[in-house]
């Protein structure tokens, strides 16, 4: 599906629809330029899952973790591979160990390296337009109504 959003409120509404479709265990790739609103989308998802605290950019911290209580989803990992320059560095993080049926993982800049290191179940592409953003959501094992 794809949707055009003009305001952050519209992004948040889309995020609300999006998280309802999650079953737990998904890896979600976030693709878009600097300033496209990748973290803003994650913030919307976390808010929709009832998380009330600040959702900060993971660019420097690499990974931020959140505890939520949203159906089967209890943990949310928010990663950013933007600063990585070597595949070894990403492999050394043992991202596979973080996988759990009650956790979902958002990954910003999953394609920062040429090698395919992350196999996302869902891709969220955000493009900056003249007015607002175009958000496209796709996934092989995943069908979003709308």
């Amino acid at each position, binding site marked *: 599906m794809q949707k055009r959003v003009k305001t952050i409120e519209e992004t948040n509404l889309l995020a609300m629809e999006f998280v309802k479709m999650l079953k737990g265990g998904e890896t979600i790739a976030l693709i878009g330029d*600097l300033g496209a609103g990748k973290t803003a989308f994650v913030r919307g998802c976390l808010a929709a899952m009832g998380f009330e605290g600040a959702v900060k950019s993971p*660019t420097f911290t690499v990974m931020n973790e959140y505890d939520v209580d949203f159906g089967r989803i209890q943990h949310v990992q928010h990663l950013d591979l933007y600063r990585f320059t070597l595949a070894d560095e990403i492999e050394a*993080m043992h991202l596979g160990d973080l996988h759990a049926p009650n956790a979902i993982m958002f990954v910003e800049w999953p394609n920062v390296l040429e090698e395919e290191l992350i196999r996302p179940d869902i891709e969220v592409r955000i493009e900056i337009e003249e007015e607002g953003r175009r958000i496209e959501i796709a996934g092989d094992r995943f069908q979003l109504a709308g």
Partner: protein
Amino acid sequence: MRILGIETSCDETALACAEFQDGKLTTLWSDIASQMKKHAEFGGVVPEVAARLHLELLSTMLQARKDEIVTVDAIAVTAGPGLKPALRSGIEAAKTLAWTLQKPLIAVSHLEGHVYANWLDQRPPALPALVLLVSGGHTELALMGEDGSFTLLGETLDDAVGEAFDKVAKMLSLGYPGGPAISKLAKEGDRAAFAFPRGFANEDHLNFSYSGLKTSVLYTLRKHEDQLGDLTFRANIAASFEAAAIDALMIKTRKALEKHEVKSLLLGGGVTANGLLRARTAELADEFDVDLRLPELKLTGDNAIMIAAAGAFHLEHLSNPFTLEARSTWPLGS
């Protein structure tokens, strides 16, 4: 007494030793891997993250200082906040040393380390103090009480100020790290050329937001795409951005100084190397008649001597060398 400091929370692998006597802290030695790797003994490029995760770098550094390490009286290690696998490298090394040398182990907050950098090799700052921490990963205002306790007053709700510098530098195709590159370009530009937003300027709370500033710069660059190669345009963007970024810090620091009576203003973190920030905080400190402490330039980035320094003030809070664990989040004051 001598305190060993170990830091592996972020990009640097660092090891240092401080002497703590009569309330004064003196640097004995301070090694940082990203600098040391230039030395022949390491050879080639060291992939920092991988190296720190595999403990190789730290092992080499510990080996190089082994004669000095056996003389320490306590071991301080960064236990958070940071990436857990990275933190664990330092923590496991510290636990092993503490057990084998039978010395006390102290878990230190990386953020407190940045604050205590202002105690090193100088007269200790007077408390209470207002603390402003500014780096790639942090933007925080806190109150440090006379007893050394911290109360968080405000923090960024999205991007950190240093991250904004790096991302705007990236948009302008300047190098990494972005801070110095932006500041250099800004010197040639007009700070008032573009009216970029100051996050939460009119809100009474003391939180920060840099995401809007980043997006505003992005929109301006997209709108003037044809001028991207023009030096004056680029310099004006850099200057206006830098002014907005530093202004936003000053607006909240001023509000905090109005609300809280303090004796010192303590700065910490990588962004404290910024010239405009240094100048503006000096003006503010004069106006409010508080003692401004800025870390020496070599201590603005991550290092282990600041961890040893913070450890000196937590000798009564020892950790168990069998159970100490990394904390991915550890807000000041908790």
